[in-house]
């Protein structure tokens, strides 16, 4: 077993373990806190896939920003006041079945398909290469993102503000 394989299994275990806590915990704040190791595990997987820039962004946005946003939203709605409440609806059994079926289906597809392996050597995925790709080939996506950001900012402010 190589170091990469060991790292992969540890990171996969961390990611999936925290995801299980996120999904099953009866305490919503515990769920939100468990998101952080989950996101960090995914970050590790990105690094194993040589995508270090994406990994940095994952920590900055997911672990640093979205988690804070979610925690704020929890504090703003119920805080810990609703901790005693029932967290799961009556569909738990059906939901578990559906999710398990989905997992089985996806795993079958993933393992049975003969994925074509790309040829060539792996280029270094530096921030510079990402920037080149963004500004040369994906310029429309790049500008489109800013519009999406603007629209969601406006929409979210309008929705969250008190009408008074």
């Amino acid at each position, binding site marked *: 077993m190589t170091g990469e394989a060991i790292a992969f299994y540890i990171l996969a275990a961390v990611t999936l373990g925290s995801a299980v806590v996120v999904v099953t915990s009866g305490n919503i704040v515990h769920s939100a806190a468990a998101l952080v190791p989950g996101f960090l595990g995914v970050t590790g997987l990105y*690094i194993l896939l040589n995508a270090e820039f994406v990994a940095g962004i994952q920590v900055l946005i997911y672990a640093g920003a979205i988690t804070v946003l979610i925690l704020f939203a929890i504090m703003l709605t119920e805080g810990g006041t609703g901790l005693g409440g029932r967290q799961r609806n009556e569909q738990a059994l059906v939901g578990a079945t559906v999710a398990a079926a989905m997992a089985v289906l996806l795993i079958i597809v993933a393992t049975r398909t003969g994925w074509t392996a790309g040829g060539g050597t792996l280029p270094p995925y530096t921030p510079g290469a990402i920037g080149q790709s963004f500004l040369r080939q994906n310029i429309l996506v790049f500008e489109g993102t800013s519009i999406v*950001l603007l629209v969601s900012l406006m929409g979210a402010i309008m929705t969250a503000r008190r009408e008074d």
Partner: protein
Amino acid sequence: MLLDWGYVAIFALVGAGMVALPLLIIWLISPRSDYPQKFETYESGVPTIGQAWSQFHVRYYLFSLVFVVFDVEIIYLYPWAVVARSLGAFAFWEMLVFLAILVLGLAYAWRRGALEWT
């Protein structure tokens, strides 16, 4: 590159161990004496009323919302900053459009009072 991050991973693991070490030490050597007042929530000596976990004002959310949008904006600036000089004027104008749209967003948030602590 993986070697770099292997180092970082060891840094994080050993670091977590070193941060946890003093906690282990106090668990071993600290004195223990139980009386209920000691485990009361500290509220300047007055008996605690109710839970601390309560609802907060929506203004916290408004700020974190604008923050998330701008934080996402900045992740696009990093790769741009690295290559801007080699790409020349074109990259500059592209980024100007990008920034202008986001400044519009800031202006909107300002105008709508999302940046007021009321």
